[in-house]
């Protein structure tokens, strides 16, 4: 499956997950993504649209293989902390 580029992908996805499933009540029930992030385990691979230095460039964790990566989740833009 080819990766949507630029703005083609509207949200992040873990790579094993592929493209987001078509929304149907059935699939949302079945499609529970398991938490796989644990210290000492491989970090879940993902790809996501991203804003980077003035442009929109998709980012993949695999792009940084061989480097240390600090991955920071936060509650939202324009929040206060």
């Amino acid at each position, binding site marked *: 499956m080819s990766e949507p580029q630029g703005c083609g992908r*509207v949200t*992040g996805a873990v790579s094993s997950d592929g493209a987001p499933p078509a929304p149907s009540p059935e699939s949302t029930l079945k499609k529970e993504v398991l938490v796989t*992030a644990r210290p000492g385990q*491989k970090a879940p691979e993902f790809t996501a649209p991203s*804003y980077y230095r003035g442009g929109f460039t998709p980012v993949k*964790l695999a792009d940084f293989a061989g480097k240390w990566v*600090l*991955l*920071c989740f936060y509650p939202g833009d324009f929040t206060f902390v």
Partner: protein
Amino acid sequence: MSAVADNYARLQALGVEVISVSVDSHFVHKMWNDHELVKMVEGGVPFHMASDQAGNIGRAYGVWDEGQGIELRGRFLIDPDGVIQAMEVMTPPVGRKLAETIRQVQAFQLVRASKGTEATPAGWMPGDLVLKPGPDLVGNVWKVWKPSQEK
């Protein structure tokens, strides 16, 4: 995130790349950067600001808050082999302390460089004593290190 952006040069010097993730679109990331963060950090955010509107990445990392539809504050340190070495997850109102993240990077890099033959005691800072776990150290840590040495 501005604190991380402000310390990006220190992280880069340690060979650390940064990716931030929230449920905001990458278009909103641009607006936040251009209208606010650029006023806090010279030049704005220098790293990838990823968008996870559906929460897929957040779920995989265990930081997705189903009730609020947001991602908790979560910090993951991933080594060059793609293995998570450290993680910290917090509810939103309290910010992180980047100096502690940098300390952990330095400690994990030391351990990695020693191929696991060295370990860092509590409160270790660069230059402090490191432990060399082995048969001789069992029961003898007290001879080389005491909690009072933690700064």
